[in-house]
């Protein structure tokens, strides 16, 4: 089937190849809700082709140098790793900074997509799309990351806990662009363990359910931080805060983790779809949650 001009899939739009972020925010303001940013295109392109999205203007940010790269910066509470929005997932996977400074993200990103999608797909794109089962949003939430958003009115930072509002819905307004995501790095002197697990139909596909865990221990073996995030089992990626609180502040024994698993099921309201039913997701969330916590604990104890 050879298509010619007459049978294009996407509805008509104007295209702007932006050279600077200023240009992007101006165009977003002018677009008044009818303009949309394209980065790697891995989720927007299908939406355009199926005409689920019919923007008047598409603003391409792929050539904006200031939107790509990974760097360590100092922030109020210690160092952070800044990943600019248009950084390709393939670049994140290959990044030494992520491998050494953000072990949980390094583990999670190995599950993201296939080589063809990672070569175009961006870190900011995953966070903007906000699929509740997607690995990068789940990891950002579990690591207490925040995003920096910008509009003509200025720049604001939004913590991950306040960022995800529902499936594919975030706190970013139509006139804002996501500039970067900021991950705190581990403090010196604490022993950190991390783990990431997921169940998917095919490696590289979206997770049906995913679990991410971080445990930090002090010199005496007392847990100073416990974070457990579950993806794919609710409308947004979720932290299991009740369980975290139960486990924090003492020595964690594996039996204690097992005893607290009920908190995982209680915290989640999964939906069912063609991939898995709600009961399955709830059960797998508890199994993967336990596995991730046990593995993170063992890693922290070895550290």
């Amino acid at each position, binding site marked *: 089937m050879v298509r010619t001009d007459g049978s294009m*899939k996407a509805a008509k739009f104007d295209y702007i190849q932006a050279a600077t972020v200023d240009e992007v925010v101006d165009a977003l303001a002018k677009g008044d809700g009818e303009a949309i940013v394209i980065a790697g*295109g891995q989720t927007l392109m299908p939406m355009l082709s199926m005409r689920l999205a019919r923007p008047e203007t598409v603003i391409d940010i792929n050539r904006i140098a200031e939107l790509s790269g990974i760097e360590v910066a100092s922030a109020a509470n210690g160092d952070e790793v800044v990943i600019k929005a248009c950084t390709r997932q393939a670049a994140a996977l290959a990044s030494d900074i992520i491998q050494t400074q953000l072990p949980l993200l390094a583990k999670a990103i190995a599950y993201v997509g296939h*080589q063809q*999608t990672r070569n175009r797909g961006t870190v900011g794109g995953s966070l903007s799309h906000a699929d509740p089962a997607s690995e990068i949003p789940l990891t950002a939430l579990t690591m207490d990351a925040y995003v920096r958003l910008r509009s003509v009115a200025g720049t604001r930072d939004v913590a991950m806990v306040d960022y995800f509002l529902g499936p594919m819905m975030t706190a970013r307004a139509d006139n804002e662009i996501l500039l970067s995501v900021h991950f705190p790095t581990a403090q010196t002197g604490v022993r950190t363990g991390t783990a990431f697990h997921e169940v998917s139909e095919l*490696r590289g596909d979206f997770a049906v359910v995913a679990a991410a865990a971080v445990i930090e221990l002090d010199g005496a073996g007392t847990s100073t931080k416990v974070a457990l995030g579950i993806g794919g089992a609710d409308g947004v990626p979720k932290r299991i805060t009740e369980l975290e609180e139960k486990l924090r502040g003492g020595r964690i024994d594996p039996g204690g983790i097992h005893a607290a698993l009920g908190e995982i099921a209680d915290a989640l309201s999964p939906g069912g779809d063609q991939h898995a039913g709600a009961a399955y997701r709830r059960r797998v969330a508890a199994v993967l949650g336990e596995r991730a916590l046990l593995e993170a604990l063992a890693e922290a104890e070895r550290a």
Partner: protein
Amino acid sequence: MRKHQIELQINGKAIAREIEPRLSLTDFLRGEQGLSGTHIGCEHGVCGACSILLDGVPIRSCLMLAVQADGHALTTVEGLTQDDGSPGLLQAAFQDAHGMQCGYCTPGMIISAQALLVDNDDPSLEQIKDAIGGNICRCTGYVQVIESIQLAASRMREAHL
């Protein structure tokens, strides 16, 4: 809706063209350039049939606008033949090891395999599976696809000796 001028390289040839921005890269290659070797399976980024190389790395051409390819160098499956047009290394290996049945997924498989073998002429089974993980085949069950890639790799190694 303003048209845009793009200049790019396809299989080593310089192309300049004026296009509507909503044209997908797959449709540009097939419809405007007559390069129908790049296949359209799902048209929404799940099957891998439309894979091409963009500046040497594999991507899904249905997930890119043609206008975004401005200034880039593309390689399609047509670009992997030998200079005289006869099958290239991977194409011949797929023929010899029966790496295709209907052939629908084949261009995408060959592009993914090309990206793998360019840096690694002795890939493990896991590395091959990972490389073609984003390419769906409804016919072969993948075994002969993998064997074809292994055959191409072994021929590459022999040629390097």
